[in-house]
């Protein structure tokens, strides 16, 4: 799962949708043209959204005669993220109480894992 997918906000998805549909790099003018039909955002808003996506690394700009933008997170990756998010939310809620799991559902960081590995040594003796 692409971790970048989680960084995309609701508004930014609108920009991403245009890039996913186009299946090619687009200049800002093209993005603006399509968005002007589907939304009533100001030019400055659209520019901000694109700039923020660039900053997060979700899209990449290439300079030709003007800047061209390319999505680095695919639509499938984003949908996977959405599904995972929903399932995780459901699982963290009530569903967790009705399934028998191997481990508890909380993430431990690397140092915790290391600590547990060092801690866990079964003796050879079997009584």
């Amino acid at each position: 799962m692409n971790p970048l997918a989680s960084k995309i906000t609701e508004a930014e998805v609108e920009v991403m949708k245009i890039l996913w549909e186009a299946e090619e790099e687009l200049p800002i003018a093209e993005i603006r043209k399509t968005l002007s039909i589907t939304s009533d955002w100001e030019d400055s808003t659209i520019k901000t959204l694109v700039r923020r996506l660039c900053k997060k690394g979700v899209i990449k700009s290439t300079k030709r005669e003007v800047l061209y933008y390319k999505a680095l997170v695919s639509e499938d990756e984003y949908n996977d993220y959405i599904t995972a998010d929903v399932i995780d939310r459901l699982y963290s809620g009530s569903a967790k109480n009705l399934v028998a799991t191997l481990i508890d559902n909380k993430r431990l960081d690397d140092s915790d894992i290391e600590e547990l590995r060092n801690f866990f040594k079964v003796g050879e003796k079997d009584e």
Partner: protein
Amino acid sequence: MNESLKLLLALSLSGSILAIFIFAIKPFISHKFSKSLQYYIWIIVLLRFILPFSFDENIMDKIFYKDEIHVNTNIEVETKSLELPVETGSNSTILSKGENSLSKKENYDMDHDHSRYFNDLLNKYALTIWIVGVAVVLGINLIGYFRFTNYLKVTNIPPLDVEKNILIDLMGGKDKVKLFRNQFVPTPMLIGIINPHIIIPDNKYNEKQIKNILLHELAHYKRFDIIIKWITMIITSIHWFNPLIYIIRKEVNHACELACDEFVIKKLKPLERQEYGDTLITVVAEAKYPIGVLQATMSEDKKGLKDRLASIMGYKKKTKVIIALSIVLVIGLIFGAMKLGAGRTYSDPKPPEIYIGAKEEDTKIGTAILGTYSWRYKNHYIEADAIDPIEMEYGSDNTVTISDVNEIFISIQNLESVNSNIGTINDIPIHKGSSNSKANIKYNFTIDNVYVYKDEKLADISIEPIYNDEGAYILTPTESGNYVYVMDLNFGDRGTATYGFVVNVAQGESDEEKEIVTVTFEDDSELPEEYREVFSTHMINIFVPAYTPYYQMKGFKVSDLRYYEDDTGIEFEFIFTMIHQNYYKDPDTVDYIKEAKENNSEYYQQMYDEYNQPQEGNYYLKFTANIVNGQIDESSIQVFTNVSPVGVEYVPFNVEDYILH
């Protein structure tokens, strides 16, 4: 309090006490006793929360039912006759609704501070709030669960063949449990009771890891842990208002994992145990989460996992002493759970004794004789038939003798408290058979019907009961004699019972002062003397029976009489004035006066003063009758009333038209 709510609170408190006890002993048993045992102990707690079984003598009974009469007998007869039937065949009298019967209604007449009203209100809504709470919690859980499984269904992918084979191998060739991979689940899990399936994260696992994962999930399957989880969820929903239940659920889940680990590793060699624990760590390490997930309980989860790993490291076969102690502990806990109880699972085998007394010095308190009843006992109704109370034989124990009081009380009360509340009752009989001597013994009842008989005839007496905290008050007759009172008491969902007792109104001052209702005539009345008596009797017979249920009748006046006579009959018009008075009552308890007081009405004082004073009511009537041999022919008497507001328009007079029902 409502019986269901009482049971619920008793179960909740009982379960909580047991849970707190187990939390307290946990440090002493956690490392020595088997993890399975520690898990089963929690199941005892869960059962305590939901099953209403208990010993007859239990602690919850004392807490929740201490204020009720407690009769311990072993009578379990379905039907019994309390008295031999007497030959008179008028058994049906009581069954027919006599004229004096009272319809059942809520009565807050004596509820000065409204406490009874608010209490009733609270009881009514508490049940609704609880039911709504259960529905909401249950709904959230089920909707969340089914949405979750639906999402998994569409995202599950089949497992690798090698994984499938390991599972079938571990199941001993059967394939009752299905296996799936799913990239979105954070941990291997077992889902479903009817159609169980294991879902593992879509990660790379080696064969040993797969085997360990499947061993763990199959252990859950074999130990019916999913069923326990569903039961826990249902119990949590029922006790949603008890904060402890959420802590208990967490503890149960943790105990479940420890017990499951123990179940797996007891068949493993030390090296395999190492691999099993390593698999746990690996799965944790690889668990993938969306970045936004909160990690507030992280350290607690680390502690939980560390606890499990420590248990795996420290696993030892249990010694015989520990096993013996375990058995003792479980038996002790079951015993303790039963002793804690769930409150009353039995009830008194028959309706309570009813005491009758009067607000008078030296009045001996009587007990009513129990007649026919329908009473809930051990969850079924006992129907007991008895003869009609009017035919019972009443002794002095069942008789209240009064001279000049005009009300008696009816109570199931402990007499001590009646004494202190009412003031001057002496000669308190000892209540045989009841071991409960606590004050404030209380059964709530309402009086559905009261019938008063004198000389085996239904007597014409106002019997509106007035309720207060101790029981009810009923007005007594003023005329001397023996009156048999027959009451139908309603104890709510416990049952109904008929009681009988005798009120003996002694010849006393009250009789001398007793006002005889008469008709008086204006001095210049033209009505000949010889007709006056028949006329008076006729009028009294119309008015007195009709109004007595509502007023005390003081007398009648005839005025403005215009008299005509011819050969066959007489005819006269007159104003008939009825003098009546309310039955004595504190005016402040009368609705419209209470309202006037609350509104600071200028008429309040006047209303208050006038309430217990005689009042007059006028009727414009015409009386006609035939005269035969100089006497009024009684069968020919007709009374009319003028209904025209200005002219004259006579219609037959019907006293019922003037009574507001």
